[in-house]
């Protein structure tokens, strides 16, 4: 499974990171090196193995359905320079 320039473009698109045309080649080559290296995992027969997503297989804890926060708008917007009337603002979404 090798990665070429157009694949890098596609991944960069999914990740919403702009990659310049002249960087695509180098990135493809780096990603390929890594992918070739991780290929060795396919040496192992895992047909009867269940995937592990969590080391502590604990139960999710439920909390009581009570309001504990949410009245601190100032605190929530304090790290943005783009606030208008208490709302976060962004460039318009063009269709």
């Amino acid at each position, binding site marked *: *499974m090798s*990665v070429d320039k157009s*694949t*890098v473009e596609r*991944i*960069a698109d*999914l*990740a*919403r*990171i*702009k*990659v310049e045309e002249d960087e695509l080649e180098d*990135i493809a080559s*780096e*990603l390929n*090196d*890594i*992918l070739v*290296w*991780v290929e*060795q*995992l*396919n040496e*192992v027969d*895992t047909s009867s*193995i*269940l*995937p*592990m*997503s*969590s*080391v*502590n297989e*604990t139960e*999710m*804890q439920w*909390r009581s359905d009570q309001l504990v926060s949410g009245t*601190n708008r100032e*605190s*929530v*917007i*304090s*790290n*943005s*320079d*783009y606030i208008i009337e208490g709302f*976060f603002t*962004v*460039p*318009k*979404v*063009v269709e």
Partner: protein
Amino acid sequence: MARLIDLSLAEAKDCLDKRDFTATELVEAHIDAAVAARPLNTIVTETTELALSNAAISDARWSRGEARLLEGIPLVVKDLFCTKNVRTTACSKILGEFTPTYESTVTEKLWGCGAVMLGKTNMDEFAMGSSNETSHFGPAVNPWRRQNDLSQLVPGGSSGGSGAAVAGRFAIASIGTDTGGSIRQPAAFTGVVGLKPTYGRCSRWGIIAFASSLDQAGPMTRTVRDNAIMLGAMAGYDPKDATSTNLGVPNFEAAITGDVRGIRIGIPEEYRVEQMPREIESLWEKGQDWLRQAGAEIININLPHTKYALPTYYIVAPAEASSNLARYDGVRYGIRVDGADLDDMYRFTRAAGFGDEVRRRVLIGTYVLSAGYYDAYYLQAQKLRRLIADDFQKVYERVDAILTPSTPYPAFSLGAKLDDPLSMYLNDVFTVPANLAGLPGISVPAGLSEEGLPLGLQVLGPSFGEEIVYRVAGVIEEAAGSQNQPEEWWL
């Protein structure tokens, strides 16, 4: 009397109790040392005023007889922990001047014990790295240098600044995080004690997430006892962290009994890697001798899937990172680069804000999770992860703890490994398995290399077995003898 900055945490507390000096004097001595050590670039945000005002509060408490566990003890905190009203950057450009309006659970516990923060430490960007060279603030420098050699060395990473500050003696202790070795490897490179607790032992709430199933906070200190004291303050169930485990916090300090008679220590065959430097091999053998002489039983064991741990990690961690870093989009905090529309804003902001290594890992992570590749890579990696964890589980039926080297070599020169990401990844070969399996692990300084650099030995324990880890580590520390200090060449 020793200089104030040479005291361990336990010693400093004793002295404060006996009124040998005040907390303010202790904190001032560390602030002075930190200022003098600015050439090491270990602290990215100094919090001097905050430190002095908290030291005064601590002094008042000491005189009222209300001293808490860490009253007046000066610490530094890896810049990955959200600290209320103190800029937190993850050493990335993308967070800009983000200033949390809340405190991480672990740091809240430390301040609740009276500890005093001197500053936020340098680290690899978003904790991705093993040398502290990917930081937006430039590399941190190891206080250690090779004998007769002026080259500057890396302190390891990603908690490089934290390790360097403790080794350089301008903080009594620090906290870091460990996702693939990011506490243990810099601890080994800087000659300090660094522990990654069992996954779930400490809360991750308020820690900027890298890989959520692997990240764990942990202490970095100059002695094993100090480390146990710190973990006691940091650990505990947090209902705000769904992955934190609801178990009580044992007295870790009491676990350092010095007695390992009858303890079975496993030596994993597969950790004897190709071309392992002779001095690492002999340190490992020396560690086994020390434990054997102390009455422990040394048993050869096998962890058959060890060689797959690094590639498994380099699929799982980037995959989780690609998800965790999706939130950095310029909308609510951090830098924003404008674009013609929202989509452009995202692309330009993230391109401008992320460094090369972060971008590399986000792209790999995105790829392995994408449609058509998920099964081949991510699912396969999750299955290997289970096999790796099962290897440990089986082995812990026959041994109580495992001894390995911490790193395949000592600290290297700045810039030496930047050309080849894969060669940098190999730094973590001994540390990564414990993260995949969620097990506790400690690095203890055990000797010096031929060129005079610190070398560490790693002790791994069973799940929630920090007590046995500290017990064995204490014996190694004792046998290794008093540790050399780096020469303070930056003064």
